[in-house]
């Protein structure tokens, strides 16, 4: 655990006690069983917003607290432990970062206070295929009388069903795969021509495919510069990836601790199974990997707070390492629990499903290993 300042310690403690008391895994189970379409409990989200969590990276002049990314990572780590579902990453990190990094004063004034108080949920509509590939933008934005007309589809938009504000990457010139020619737009989700299809995913979290059919927006909907949206998009994505890695860190640690508890109580052959060296050494390996992953995740968040030039490589490092570790731990959780881990009544399946969804979101391990190598020139 990074060395924290007083305000960060308080934030972490508040997040820990709130998630443990108000949002344990049973709350996630209840949400899933209820079939809520948006994929999270709206009342719980209101409580989070009241505690100021949605505004942690938003400047104070726009209603936030500007505590920074390590701070929101601490909250997300606690939320990850109990698998708390919320639009905090999509809105409080994704949409908020895009606006902070690329928004005009007018856009910031209009949207950031509402994101900070939770009344507006934002989401990033970025990907268009089965794999994260933010430069492969085909969705077209063409000049129109009012400004621009958007046509195309976005897939796997995290919290896309709940969102009232979409940050959409669109092509204003060039070809899919070009980084030049991408422009970001702020599109209200209720705009004419926007249609959303809810995705029911294995991890029960909220996501949607979104079709844009000649959606008319004004020129003032452009976030940042026309054709030059890549820079803000990539920086925004790095902030989302680092935040997601923090959530994964919490979830993986809880999956490990739950498993460790089980190893200490499950008796077979007349002794607790945790006394078997075959399991002990696998536990020691997981602990080792979790500690390495924690270092990587915290370093990425700290680099963002310091606006360090190595943010892209540190973020890819952390998402790749964290993905590998969560993958391992979630599999071992099921295996070490044996039959009980296969039942829906047990939590192990939740962690396994969340692991794969989080691994794939905003770039899998192979995506980020490739990116890390390219950044370093090989």
């Amino acid at each position, binding site marked *: 655990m990074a060395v924290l300042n007083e305000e960060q310690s308080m934030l972490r403690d508040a997040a820990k006690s709130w998630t443990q008391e108000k949002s344990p895994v049973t709350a996630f189970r209840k949400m899933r069983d209820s079939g809520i379409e948006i994929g999270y409990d709206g009342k719980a989200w209101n409580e989070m917003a009241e505690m100021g969590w949605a505004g942690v990276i938003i400047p104070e002049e726009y209603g936030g607290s500007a505590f920074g990314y390590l701070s929101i990572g601490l909250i997300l780590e606690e939320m990850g432990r109990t698998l708390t579902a919320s639009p905090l990453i999509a809105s409080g990190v994704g949409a908020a970062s895009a606006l902070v990094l690329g928004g005009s004063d007018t856009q910031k004034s209009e949207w950031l206070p509402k994101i900070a108080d939770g009344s507006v949920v934002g989401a990033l509509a970025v990907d268009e295929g089965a794999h994260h590939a933010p430069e492969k933008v085909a969705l077209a934005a063409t000049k129109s009388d009012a400004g621009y007309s958007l046509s195309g589809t976005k897939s796997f938009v995290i919290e896309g069903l709940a969102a009232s504000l979409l940050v959409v990457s669109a092509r204003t010139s060039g070809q899919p795969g070009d980084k030049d020619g991408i422009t970001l737009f702020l599109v209200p989700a209720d705009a004419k021509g926007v249609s959303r299809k809810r995705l029911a995913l294995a991890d029960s979290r909220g996501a949607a495919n979104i079709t844009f059919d000649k959606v008319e927006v004004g020129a003032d909907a452009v976030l940042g510069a026309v054709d030059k949206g890549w820079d803000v998009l990539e920086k925004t994505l790095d902030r989302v990836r680092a935040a997601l890695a923090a959530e994964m860190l919490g979830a993986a640690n809880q999956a490990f601790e739950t498993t460790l508890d089980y190893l200490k109580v499950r008796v077979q052959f007349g002794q607790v199974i945790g*006394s078997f060296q075959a399991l002990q050494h696998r536990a020691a390996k997981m602990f080792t990997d979790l500690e390495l992953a924690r270092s990587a995740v915290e370093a990425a968040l700290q680099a963002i707070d310091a606006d360090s030039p190595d943010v892209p490589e540190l973020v890819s490092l952390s998402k790749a390492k964290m993905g590998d570790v969560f993958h391992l731990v979630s599999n071992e959780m099921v295996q070490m629990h044996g039959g009980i881990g296969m039942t829906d009544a047990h939590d192990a399946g939740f962690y396994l499903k969340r692991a794969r969804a989080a691994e794939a979101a905003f770039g899998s391990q192979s995506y980020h290993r490739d990116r890390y190598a390219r950044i370093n020139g090989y």
Partner: protein
Amino acid sequence: MADFGGGDPEAFRKEVREWVDANFPAELKSRPNPMMREERAEPSEAQEAWRKAVGSKGWGTPTWPSQYGGGGLGTAEARIIQQEFGRAGAYNPIGGMGVMMFGPTLLEYGTEDQKLEHMPLICRGDVQWCQGFSEPGAGSDLAALQTRAEDKGDHFLINGQKIWTSGAQYADWCFCLVRTDTSKKHEGISFVLFSMHQPGVEVRPIKLIAGNSPFCETFFTDVLAEKKNLVGPLNGGWSIAKRLLQHERGGLSGAGGGGMGGRSLVDLAREYVGVDAQGRIADPDLRTRVVHHEIEGRSFQQTAVRVMLESKGNSGPSAATSIMKNAGTSWMQLRQELTLEIMGHQGLGWEGDTFKPEELGAVRGWLGGKAFTIYGGSQEVQSNIISKRILGLPDLTQNN
């Protein structure tokens, strides 16, 4: 850093720089540290002069107390000495087991007389130490050791055999674990010191798979250790040994890039494997494994930084400390395997001018590196320690 106690770090740096310029023999500039060579030659006049100069200042052991021959300095000053030596192309001539393991342990457990007798000799580099721990029947299960020390009034008489004794052929003294009570296991072990230059000490170097002989078999027949050289209480040697092994493990995990020296895997791959039109390592399977390994190394380095910062924070020592030996040594071994693979046939040479020194070094390093996960507590023993002490799982070995 508060180490200067109000003093001026730049003034100290100037003092060190001037002293190094005045005392470091030019002919040794950028030469390797003779302490690091396994096959030791007679030291040259310049090497001896440099050792004596640094030793008499206590700057080879800068943070040790000055009354025992150390520099009596803080860590910030020690860092400046290290930096200034590096700037001048100078090595630290004071080192070995005495500095790395025995000295810190004696500081903690020794009597005043023992410290005054032994530590100044270590600080001056006058005495080299070896570690008499492992035995043929006591490796990972170290407490099974059987070398006997018989009480003869004012001294002990020692009989038995040690193995894997690093540098025993060059050592003047031995810190040794001996059995003083055969009725108990851990509580029957004592920690004694004796001279290697006496009748009954026989040292046989062991040739290893890499072709070198860094370790010895060491035989003791009626070897004498004076009672004043018992460290800690009689039969109380085990806890001292455990503490000493922590110093050893701390020194063995220095991986994560800098520790290995040499060129990066990426540089080697560019040369031996080539790159594609986009500048990527041409073999995509190898590239993937190199990235994996680079990421692992970075996260290890980040953990080393985190452990250091956390230990200075207010929450006590980090649990992450326990992972460093396993994580660091497996990383280094994988690096050696990848280096060999990248070099292809050129990475299989044993000797001869068909191969560059870098290539021959890679082969010997790869073989020698297999020991990393065996000595200083094997990978498996380290995993036992993590599962017992950190994770609270039941211990069936009763060994750690």
